[in-house]
């Protein structure tokens, strides 16, 4: 063998037997102090040295330049396409940008369509016109009947739908990363169940109708308290591990569910109706105040999630590996659960229980842009907004003159859709679900 054989050797797929430089270094370096490597290995080393001139220093290295020295490996096979043309980080970034652009466009469409639908029929053009006239031109939104409808009823509702969807989807994304499991959902840690108990309590007590903000406040408090309970009960030996969290969550969810049922049992007819409708999830009570509060909480929660998303990715390697990389796993998990709880809590407080958004949005986006939270967190905010915006449009139009509870709609459509995605994922590339 001589140097003409070199190109063949170089392009030999690295994953088939280590006969490349990786194997070559094994031939040359382990036995530096070895008196007599066989002539065959000498020859092999020589051929490979010829074959891979760029790294000649490495092949003969033992005490010389070696791994991790920048420049050492530069340029080697860098331009060669891998034998397996799969989506990679670069194309994932491109896909993320395309997806972001598509979702932004969809968001604009959803706003226009959602705002133009209703008993008082308008066109998207009129909606756009009103938006520009009032927002930019400073026109009085109450002077005109069309403006008044849009600015007091439809825009707040659309805004709340988008914000609630974004909150739920971002919370779901972080939750899945946090649990290193694509089937995790914020409800696991008791957010929704706790909110239901809180809401049920004030409804049955009669405070919900007399005092304006008690219902969302109680729901939000219930969400926080039950999540705190799940967290503290799942800590063993000063650490909360995923399995303990899930199992504790199941138990606490069952208890909270029973408590809500008990409240339904205790309440009078109108309270029962109110609890049941609240649990179905609805956007019909949207006001600028509720949308505003949700917006503030959403922005704070989103910023928090954006700040920790790189570290959440590392949890996919397991808690031990993550902590070996300097990640304070326990503190990160507590912070992330707090963010998930606040985001989901505010959504549930103003819109009731809306399921599947937090599950299906990150799951779908992961199929497109890969599992990195760097892309998933910002994209799921957009995706969740678009999805719940669409669901709200559907909830208002599927049955004429009836306002279906949007939570019922997301579950009805989201459940089967999720099954389809799940089956495709499982059948596909062996993703460990």
């Amino acid at each position, binding site marked *: 063998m001589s140097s003409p054989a070199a190109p063949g050797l170089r392009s030999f*797929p*690295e*994953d088939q*037997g*280590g006969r*490349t*430089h*990786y*194997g070559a*270094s*094994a031939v040359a*370096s*382990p*036995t530096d*102090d*070895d*008196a*007599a490597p066989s002539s065959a290995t000498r020859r092999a080393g020589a051929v490979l040295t010829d074959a891979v001139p760029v790294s000649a220093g490495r092949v003969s290295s*033992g005490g*010389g330049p*070696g*791994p*991790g*020295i*920048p420049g050492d*490996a*530069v340029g*080697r*096979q*860098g331009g*060669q396409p*891998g034998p*397996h*043309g*799969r*989506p*990679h*980080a670069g194309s994932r970034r491109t896909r993320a940008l395309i997806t972001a652009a598509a979702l932004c466009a969809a968001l604009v469409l959803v706003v226009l369509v959602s705002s133009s639908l209703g008993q008082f029929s308008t066109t998207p053009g009129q909606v756009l016109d009103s938006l520009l006239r009032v927002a930019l031109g400073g026109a009085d939104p109450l002077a005109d009947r069309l403006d008044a409808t849009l600015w007091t009823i439809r825009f707040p509702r659309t805004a709340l739908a988008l914000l609630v969807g974004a909150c739920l989807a971002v919370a779901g994304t972080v939750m899945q990363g946090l649990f*290193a499991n*694509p089937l995790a959902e914020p409800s696991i840690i008791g957010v929704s169940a706790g909110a239901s108990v809180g809401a049920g309590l004030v409804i049955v007590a009669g405070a919900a109708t007399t005092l304006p903000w008690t219902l969302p406040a109680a729901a939000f408090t219930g969400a926080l308290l039950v999540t705190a309970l799940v967290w503290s009960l799942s800590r063993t030996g000063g650490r909360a591990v995923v399995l303990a969290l899930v199992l504790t969550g199941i138990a606490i969810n069952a208890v909270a569910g029973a408590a809500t049922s008990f409240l339904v049992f205790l309440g009078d007819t109108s309270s029962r109706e109110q609890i049941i409708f609240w649990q179905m999830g609805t956007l019909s009570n949207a006001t600028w105040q509720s949308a505003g509060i949700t917006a503030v909480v959403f922005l704070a929660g989103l910023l928090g999630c954006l700040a920790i998303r790189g*570290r959440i*990715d590392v949890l*996919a*390697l*397991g808690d*031990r*590996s993550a*902590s*070996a*990389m*300097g*990640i*304070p796993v326990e503190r990160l998990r507590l912070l992330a659960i707090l963010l998930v709880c606040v985001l989901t809590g505010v959504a549930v407080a103003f819109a009731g229980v809306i399921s599947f958004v937090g599950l299906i949005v990150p799951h779908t986006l992961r199929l497109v842009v*890969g*599992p*990195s939270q760097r892309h998933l967190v910002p994209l799921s905010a957009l995706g969740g907004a678009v999805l719940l915006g669409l669901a709200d449009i559907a909830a208002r139009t599927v049955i004429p003159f009836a306002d279906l509870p949007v939570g019922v709609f997301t579950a009805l459509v989201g459940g089967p859709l999720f099954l389809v995605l799940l089956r495709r994922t499982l059948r596909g*590339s*062996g*993703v*460990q679900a």
Partner: protein
Amino acid sequence: MSGALRLRSVSVRMGARSLVDAVDLTLESGQVTAIIGPNGAGKSTLLSVAAGQLRPSTGTVHLGEREAHRVPSAEAARRRAVMPQDSAVAFAFTVREVVAMGRTPWRKAKADDDTAVTAALDLTGLTGLADREVTTLSGGERQRAALARVIAQATPVTEGSVILLDEPTSAMDVAHAESTLALTRRLAAQGAAVGVVLHDLDAAASYADRLLLLENGRVRAHGPVQEVCRAEVLSAVYGTPVEVLDAGGRLRVGPVRPARTG
């Protein structure tokens, strides 16, 4: 002084059971130390203590001059990289993304990180697999990805770097296993203190500078390869005849196997 990582009379107890009992271990810069011993001898437990993942019941761990748990976690991660036994990844990250996670403790210029990641991929022969999803890889390939991540984390290797590997070659074919072991030598040559748990006695004898032989959580033998690799000691610890042959300056260590006739 001396020793990038020092364990002093470390014990780990779980209930009444003693998993590791009064073990001293010093990982010296520039040396490969192999931890060997039968199943359940406490090798992985000891490595977990060295890795800072498990606080010992008694005893101390020093990373450089300071007690390991007093070193801030990010700084500790820059000096000590750990490859666990389990190389599973929960989501379909690409190999390059997984290796890039090794740069988490560094937070430096992006270009620097890219160089380290590319070099680590190259060193483990994964350049061609860089864009594959780890969930589609074989066990051995996934192990190489975990190794590449550890190398990326350990870059730049300096005096005082500590690299801990728990059975890094258990799923690899013989060529990649040899390359991986050769890599530990090269990392040591750059100044790293390498600790590696191995089952293959011959590989341990060939590639390590020092051996730590554990039996039921206790140190049975500790020292240079020539001292620890004695047939009668290994045979007694493993409960099966082990032979040690001198093959021209290096020891060949392995079980005594029956001759095949016919």
